[in-house]
């Protein structure tokens, strides 16, 4: 049921498949500085979308604009087709979980969870029943009479989730809710949050600066930088076909090797590039390019290889290189190279041993062309 309403294209459809939330041209400025600008984001019914970016990229501002804590200076926001701009937060019906949980310290766990229902003047017996049910759902059954101060970090997190979800929100906003937990608990809560979100099928925007969280939890990721959207796509899209150098370097690590476009190439087509040492290779282009333009050839360290001698040409991109140093990481070894064509590269060798290579050794750097992408400089 969830899959049918899921979309990985991000198209802003209409009618029955209308997105749950649409941001169109949203911007917010503080003086001359735009905190966010020209945001176009659509979240489908039941979808889990992550805003990912470095701190100060505008992701939390975006969240505050959707929740209604901050009024945008430009653009429109539609929640199930209903415009939100100008509507105060308490009329939006959007659940919010804050980084510090923001539990009410003067209320018990059950009173915290029931607060939204009391504000809606729902009869007492119904409140009690729904709170009880929600506490069971977040696995806090029987802790309703506790004070929030008497709970562990993970339990507080669950209370905050229960409090936001019990009002049956039309939309859920999560502001780095896992960042205050220790590593092990964080990984546990990732699954827990996704489980709840799937079970209740509530469309969600999750804000984080943690790329592994984003990759593990999301249907789609919106990569943001400097107040703008850099790329929107599924975790696989974002990781394997980054739109530009920023996305390539922000998510995982990426080798970027300068090259020149030999002949004009259309977007999505394969084109020939030439490296500074004269070697040529034909690789996919994400965006079209004219001949003579500088591009970066991007390839993930785990998709490359190092061999002692340059093989005979078989279409594989092979560049002469010198080993600068090796980093032993237990399950894998990083081989750092200096390329004869200019620049540096890293190769991750799983199952290889440090003894295979040594610093100063002349080697060949290999990558399969379909694992490479040309990114505009």
């Amino acid at each position, binding site marked *: 049921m969830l899959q049918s309403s899921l979309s990985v294209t991000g198209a802003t459809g209409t009618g029955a498949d209308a997105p749950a939330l649409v941001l169109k041209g949203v911007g917010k400025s503080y003086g001359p500085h735009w905190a966010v600008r020209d945001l176009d984001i659509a979240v489908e019914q039941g979808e889990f979308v992550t805003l990912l970016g470095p701190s100060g990229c505008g992701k939390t501002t975006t969240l505050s604009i959707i929740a209604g804590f901050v009024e945008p200076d430009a653009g429109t926001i539609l929640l199930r087709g209903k415009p939100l701009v100008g509507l105060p937060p308490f009329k939006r019906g959007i659940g919010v979980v804050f980084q510090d949980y923001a539990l009410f310290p*003067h209320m018990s766990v059950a009173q915290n969870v029931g607060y939204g229902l009391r504000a809606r003047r729902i009869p007492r017996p119904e409140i009690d029943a729904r709170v009880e049910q929600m506490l069971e759902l977040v696995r806090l059954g029987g802790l309703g009479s506790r004070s929030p101060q008497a709970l562990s970090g993970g339990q507080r997190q669950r209370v905050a989730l229960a409090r936001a979800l019990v009002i049956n929100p039309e939309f859920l906003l999560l502001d780095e809710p896992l960042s205050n937990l220790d590593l092990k608990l964080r990984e546990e809560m990732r699954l827990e949050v996704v489980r709840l979100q799937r079970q209740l099928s509530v469309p969600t925007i999750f804000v984080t600066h943690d790329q592994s969280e984003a990759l593990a939890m999301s249907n789609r990721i919106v990569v943001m930088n400097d107040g703008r959207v850099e790329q929107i796509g599924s975790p696989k899209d974002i990781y394997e076909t980054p739109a530009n150098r920023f996305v390539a370097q922000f998510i995982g690590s990426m080798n970027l090797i300068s090259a020149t476009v030999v002949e004009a190439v259309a977007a999505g087509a394969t084109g020939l590039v030439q490296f500074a040492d004269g070697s040529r290779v034909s690789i996919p282009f994400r965006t079209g390019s004219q001949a003579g333009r500088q591009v970066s050839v991007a390839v993930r360290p785990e998709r490359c290889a190092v061999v002692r001698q340059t093989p005979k040409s078989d279409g594989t991109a092979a560049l002469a290189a010198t080993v600068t140093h090796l980093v032993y990481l237990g399950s894998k070894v990083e081989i750092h190279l200096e390329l004869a064509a200019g620049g540096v590269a890293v190769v991750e060798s799983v199952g290889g041993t440090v003894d295979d290579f040594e610093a100063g050794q002349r080697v060949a750097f290999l990558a399969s062309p379909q694992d490479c992408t040309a990114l505009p400089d």
Partner: protein
Amino acid sequence: MSLPSIRPWTWLKITVGLTYVFMLAPILVTIVVSFNAGTRSVFPPEGWSLRWWYEAFSPEWQSAIYLTLGLSSTTAVLCTVVGLPLAFGLVRHRFPGRKLLILLVLGPLLLPTLATGIGLLQVFHWTGIFETVGFGSLLVGHVVISLPFAVRTISVSLLGLPANVEAAAASLGANRIQIFWQIILPLIRNGLVAGALFAFIHSFTDVNLSLFLSGPAAAPITVKILGFLEFGFAPTLAALSAISLIIPLLVVLAVQRTTRLGDFVYAPKQP
């Protein structure tokens, strides 16, 4: 244990002991003297009697105590009611004239009360809003000099509100009025109570300002005691001093049972 490690503690203990002696001994002496059987205030007493306490509870003194209680309680309530919106404005908003308002509110804390008293007396005289001296002018004066205590403690508690609880309440469907009554007010309760208490004590123990603003029909107990002193230190005064000491003490003890006052006495933040 070696000597050098003992010595600092010994000195500290002596210092603390002396502080207590100098603070508490005069009070104890006053209380003991109030039970003196003789007509002179001497220590040690020349026998035991309750006659001065009967004297202290005469209708004349009783009315002065009631007036002071009424004045201080009303001052405490008014300071809280006026101080809450003031503290809100000063803590939450940046507006032109904010610095001036801070100066006006906290000013009486820095000025000698004597100067405030003379100033107020002249204002009342010129404007004729109140009879120049009396309960009305006393009340205005006491609110002016006690307000800084209320505004400061309420500001501290507003600044100490947990981040995002108001935003959380709003996202859960609470409007501004609900947020104020259900979230903010319960969370700053300690600050409100402490502010009212400090205003009460400050008003109850004030003598400088009251000297200027009290009239024959309306004189707080402190002013009456001062007036009576001109005829010598009768043991009645010792009993009255004890009464005016015990009342605020009882109030503090009562409030202390439900409110953590220490937060506001020892760790004041700047508003």
